């Protein structure tokens, strides 16, 4: 059993100093839905948990003219209940709603999903297509990293010792913009994505796509933005040929593994199907905005 030391600082500076000065492996504790399980199975003798949920702002979400400033540790249950956020970022909300069960969503956070940096993390493609910026606080001050540069590999990210994720910022989308996220799992609930796709689209008054972002999950070591798929949509009215071209570009950009959830070939194919379907949903939503 791992011997745990628990601290619950009430300030970012307090958390940074605990994390920076720890002489045992130190972990930020948000909802704990990944961390507690990983600790049970870990070979570490001792671990420091720095619970960040008592720090002001970590559990809040503020939607303003500048966009969404999301406290990274807000539970998915609280996040998905926010009708104001759902109107602006329905795809991110639906991604958060897919995490685990009602019980898991009662604790799991979007910041934890991002920092755990699993290739299959459901909220990451939705963050990527919304141009999320990760505000990281550490001993040297604050820095802001684009979500697509945050993950560096399977379960790895750009944060250094002593750093923590303080805010996730999503800029306000342009007019007539919306997003969608879809994943494929073998059952209807409680499973990990075999493949996932997030799409954000901006349409003009004639219904032509004038801006797009496409991200794929669970088909590469990290979630990826696929600019070739976005380019296939921009300038089109999202006709079947354009959607197929985007799907093909997403499949081509993927480099999935084969495991018991699906073969590499299967994943490559369905990630394209998901891109098509998510693009259609995002387009319908963008027309309503």
């Amino acid at each position, binding site marked *: 059993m791992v011997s745990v*030391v628990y601290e619950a600082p009430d300030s970012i500076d307090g958390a940074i100093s605990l994390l920076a000065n720890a002489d045992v492996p130190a972990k930020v504790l948000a909802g704990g839905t990944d961390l507690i*399980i990983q*600790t049970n199975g870990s070979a570490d003798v001792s671990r420091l948990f720095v619970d960040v949920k008592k720090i002001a702002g970590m559990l809040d979400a503020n939607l303003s003219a500048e966009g969404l400033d999301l406290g990274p540790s807000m539970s998915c249950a609280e996040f998905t209940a926010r009708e104001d956020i759902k109107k602006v970022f329905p795809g991110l909300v639906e991604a958060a709603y897919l995490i685990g069960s*009602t*019980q*898991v969503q009662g604790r799991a956070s979007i910041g934890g999903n991002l920092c755990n940096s699993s290739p299959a993390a459901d909220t990451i493609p939705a963050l990527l297509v919304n141009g999320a910026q990760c505000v990281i606080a550490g001993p040297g001050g604050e820095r802001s990293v684009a979500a697509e540069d945050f993950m560096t590999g399977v379960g790895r990210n750009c944060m250094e010792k002593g750093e923590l994720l303080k805010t996730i910022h999503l800029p306000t989308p342009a007019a007539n913009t919306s997003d969608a996220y879809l994943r494929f799992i073998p059952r209807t*609930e*409680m499973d990990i994505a075999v493949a996932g796709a997030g799409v954000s689209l901006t349409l003009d008054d004639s219904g032509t796509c004038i801006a797009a972002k496409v991200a794929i999950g669970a088909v590469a070591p990290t979630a990826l933005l696929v600019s070739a798929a976005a380019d296939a949509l921009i300038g089109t009215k999202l006709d079947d040929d354009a959607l197929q071209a985007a799907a093909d570009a997403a499949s081509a950009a993927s480099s999935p593994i084969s495991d018991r959830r699906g073969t590499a070939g299967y994943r490559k194919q369905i990630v394209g199907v998901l891109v098509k379907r998510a693009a259609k949903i995002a387009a319908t939503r963008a027309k309503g905005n």
Partner: protein
Amino acid sequence: MAKTHVTTSINGEPQEFLCEPGDTLLDVLRNDLNMTGTKEGCGSGDCGACSVTLNGRLVCSCLVLGVEVEGAEVGTIEGVSSGDGLHVIQEKFLEHAALQCGICTPGIIVSTKALLEENPNPTEEEARYYLAGNLCRCTGYDKIIRAVMDSAETLRGGA
């Protein structure tokens, strides 16, 4: 390692306990407070047998640390019925024979109560999605869902 002193509220009653910082709320309830109504199925968030409410939100007590409930309000199966009688949901589970071995039942009843507080008039589909994190290896779910839907109707009628 020194144990940590925690002050909390369980089922509306003030409660204090000592625990190791790595102990889960489930460990504390069962081993230290002798509240064994909350069950352990998997210990990894998959089965829902350990469901409790934390500040009104449904959670898996196997994924919460005991030290995290300092100052919080915890609700367990032991607090579902007030007084000596059974809660309507408990009565309906008996009436519909919605349990066999019973290990999943406390978690499902706690979850059903949380569901009906959030949404007193769920569709069957909404009820099934809400309870998807509560696994039952015995009943095949049909009787559980009937008990849940009947509880909802009865509670609405009685309100």
